[in-house]
């Protein structure tokens, strides 16, 4: 009996040490370093467009709801996008003046939560729900009791999209020729927005009218 309890103690100790020492790789990440700028472009000739229009409010998307927003930071965001495009040689016109490009600034927040069954104590349920995640191959095993784990994660980011109104396709659809996401800590702070918007244009040197 004494021997059994000792091996049991060892087992409990090992599991305890394991969970205690599993480390969070981004716990020490500086808020400035947490900012991520993602841009997608297409192979169109960006010099073939001259004018653009941009609305005076941002599109707000929250899970499956959407609306318009014109808070101070939204206006700073719109203004900075417009200034960057103008500096790159494009002319801002009204939406009614048949612009070549339609710019859609947006603020997106997405929250997801729920319970997930875990079949294997070696499988970490929190893993796989991040922006890029996906379930790893052989994470599951059978014969273990099922654990239920609560998870919750949310994403908040700035988004901007530029659609091509000059070459509308036959089925009346406009192609998106550029889009960008700004993610990270503190992105909604008014003082930060100018430099954040400048950063997405700085990494898109092809986005110029001349």
């Amino acid at each position, binding site marked *: 009996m004494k021997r059994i309890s000792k091996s049991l103690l060892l087992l409990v100790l090992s599991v305890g040490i394991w969970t205690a020492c599993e480390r969070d790789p981004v716990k020490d990440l500086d808020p400035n370093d947490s900012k991520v700028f993602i841009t997608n472009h297409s192979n169109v000739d960006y010099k073939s467009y001259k004018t653009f229009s941009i609305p005076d409010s941002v599109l707000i998307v929250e899970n499956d709801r959407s609306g318009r927003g014109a808070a101070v930071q939204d206006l700073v965001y719109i203004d900075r996008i417009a200034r960057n495009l103008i500096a790159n040689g494009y002319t801002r016109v009204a939406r009614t003046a048949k612009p070549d490009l339609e710019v859609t600034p947006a603020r997106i927040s997405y929250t997801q939560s729920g319970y997930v069954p875990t079949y294997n104590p070696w499988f970490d349920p929190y893993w796989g729900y*991040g922006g890029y995640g996906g379930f790893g191959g052989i994470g599951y095993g059978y014969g273990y009791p099922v654990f239920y784990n609560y998870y919750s994660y949310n994403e908040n980011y700035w988004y901007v999209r530029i659609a091509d109104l000059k070459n509308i396709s036959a089925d009346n659809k406009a192609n998106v020729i550029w889009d960008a996401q700004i993610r990270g800590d503190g992105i909604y702070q008014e003082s930060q927005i100018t430099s954040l918007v400048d950063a997405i244009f700085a990494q898109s040197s092809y986005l110029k009218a001349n």
Partner: protein
Amino acid sequence: MRRLLLLALVGLASGAYAQQNPDYYNKKQDYEYRSVPTRTMGSPFERYTHYQISARYGVASPLGSLKDYTNATSKYHYNVSGEFIFPKNFSLGLQFNYSYFKERSARQVYTEGDQDISAVQTRSLGATSLHVFGKYHFTGSNAPIRPYVLAGLGGTAMRNLTYFGYLEEGKNSVALSGQVGLGARFLFAKNGNFGADVQATYFYSPFKSDYLSNVTNVSASAGLFYRWW
């Protein structure tokens, strides 16, 4: 009365001491019983299969594709093991091991197809292994210094996460793994229960992910052990 109590306490303590240390009396009486074989028998550690648990901490250095991925020495290398030590030179046990590697790059733009991502990238691998291992010891089980070689085989829960800022991309799976190593065990006292254990190991796992083609590292660790029978 007080003095009597004190004397009684001393008497009890010496009795208890003698019980814990059979040699205390054995030595005194040795000349009287020299012909009795039981008195010349080895320690129970030499005669019976006994048990040992050890805990070690150390550093690990990545090799191969892991070095390309996280070129940094791991300060998080923990090791707990329990084993059966057989009277001859072999022992067999179970080992739990955790190693963690992490490296962060300065901000740069990562381009993939039409996508550009400007981010601070953090690359990490947490490897939690459970190995069955065998040891061959070069000296007897009660020798003050006991060098050994070991080989282990088992599974590793790999937590391979790559972060762009806080955006996480990764693979979490269980992979086959093994290790070979050499080490030595030092007893603190003759025939004692406690001692120190040092070990150097080479770890290999054929784990594959987008960033890794295998996981290889060398590690050095030191710690304490307790043995009993």
